[in-house]
């Protein structure tokens, strides 16, 4: 029996307090968040609005010319519903200028470049508003490594980081996000017709059940077979987790001195706040 259902009232309360506390105590005035038109960014933005009010939340839609047209409409729908400002910044000129030098680049390479371009814009705009970049990566993506390193994986704080995708759906419904946003198939929208679940080769529901038992319940892959989960799929998921461990860590430093950054120089991030 796998129960991934969450107490949505409790979780929304905690995450709202989290955003308010971590933003205000470091002296920031708000957050900027990339609004893709998908459920994760809509939910992150919603939590930020609950925490800080709409005036403190800036949404950025950063379409590429091949992005699905309805994505921008969905981003505008989210911004309108949350009463937040939505800046629309096209990334086609710089992306096309760059890849004119590399016409052979495959979709993955192009998608990663776009994700990092968006990150670079989010950080630029955040500095002009004394705001923090709000993350939109859920726990399923983080564990599967389904994100671009230093792209969508880069942000100052991330309210969704301990929620599996199936739990993101629960919370989004609880908080009344538009059905059009909640019910559409998840997509990174890095190229036309992309689907997360087609990319991954399994559904989030399958992955989340496996991840929950492996990570939260600390069961071994063998023990998951006893629960009736497909051993081959368990192996695929577990290998993805292992192969993407580097994405969840700061970069490596070769230890030379008696006290080294990232190793034994250990101060809390909220030091002095």
């Amino acid at each position, binding site marked *: 029996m796998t*129960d991934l*259902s*969450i*107490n*949505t009232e*409790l*979780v929304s*309360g*905690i995450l709202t*307090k*989290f955003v308010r*506390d*971590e933003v205000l105590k470091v002296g920031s005035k708000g957050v900027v968040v990339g609004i893709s038109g998908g459920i994760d960014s809509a939910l992150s933005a919603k939590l930020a609005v609950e925490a800080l009010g709409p005036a403190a939340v800036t949404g950025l839609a950063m379409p590429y010319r091949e992005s699905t047209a309805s994505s921008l409409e969905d981003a505008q729908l989210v911004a309108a519903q949350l009463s937040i400002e939505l800046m629309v910044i096209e990334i086609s000129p710089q992306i096309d200028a760059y890849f004119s030098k590399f016409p052979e680049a495959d979709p993955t390479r192009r998608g990663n470049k776009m994700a990092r371009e968006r990150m670079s814009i989010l950080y630029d705009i955040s500095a002009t508003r004394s705001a923090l970049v709000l993350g939109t990566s859920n726990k399923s993506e983080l564990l599967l490594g389904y994100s671009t390193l230093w792209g969508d994986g880069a942000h100052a*704080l991330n309210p969704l980081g301990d929620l599996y995708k199936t739990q993101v759906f629960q919370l989004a419904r609880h908080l009344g996000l538009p059905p059009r946003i909640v019910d559409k198939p998840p997509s990174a929208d890095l190229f036309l017709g992309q689907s997360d679940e087609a990319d991954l080769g399994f559904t989030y529901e399958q992955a989340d059940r496996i991840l929950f038992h492996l990570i939260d319940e600390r069961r071994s892959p063998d023990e998951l077979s006893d629960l009736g989960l497909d051993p081959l799929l368990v192996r695929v998921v577990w290998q993805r987790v292992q192969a993407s461990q580097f994405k969840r860590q700061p970069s490596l430093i070769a230890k030379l001195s008696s006290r080294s950054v990232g190793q034994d*120089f*250990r*101060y*809390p*991030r*909220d*030091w*002095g*706040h």
Partner: protein
Amino acid sequence: MAASKRLRMALVQHQPVLGDLQANLLWSCEQIAGEVRDGTDLVVFPELSLTGYFLKDLTPEIAVTLAGPELKQLIEATGRASSLVGLVLESPQFNFYNAAVLISDGAVRQVHRKVYLPTYGMFDEQRYLAAGDRFEVVELALGGGASWRIGILVCEDLWHPSSAYLLSRAGVDLLLCPSSSPGRGVGSGEGELGSAGSYGAMLRTYAELFTVFVAYCNRVGFEDGFHFWGGSRLLGPDGRILAGPLEDSAAVLHAELDRGDVRRARIARPLLRDERIDVVQRQLGIGGDD
């Protein structure tokens, strides 16, 4: 007559500034002075209230000594009343303890060094801190002159029932439980946070089985994404909640304790009288005559 014997207590559920000893000290002294002015007899703060919890390498940097200026300021702010504050205490041997210090009537009356330092999962206390090795009861005249037998359990100490049992054998009638409990467990099956449910069950069990008052003072706010959930409360010696639990935000919980409640609870349910310490001792192979 009974009214004058009541102990007026304040549980200060707050969010310390992580690693800023002076800011927390100043704020705490103001809180204590304000409460004492308003007639509070005992002001209780959460675990590590002067420092914050996830200190890591800050631990030795924000430590204080028993003879240092910080405790002098707290003693002065407390005046004739009493207070319980949480801090990192540095020993002459340069060990650092997670300590709760009970101040009363111009002096430090009791220092409890946390015995159980959690070092698993999200916790890393043994990396930075030395462990205490005893649970002791101190007898103090508080609130209209009634004599109270006070024991202190800091957070993880509560997760070991022998801690409360030893204090019970030492005659405790008021357990003070400062805490910095990070919340986890948000499954829909529970009506509340998993950690809140665990503490609720433990506190009630200790209050009811040891027929003692239990004052639980947890903190609020976030440190590095860890969420402290509040829920400070006072339970009576029959296990019922007399005040609180507070919501998950900064607040002060006021309550009045009547020591007569302990007497009544122990007449109604003489569990401590009937405790078979001889059986415990024999089975554990310690002390005992038979």
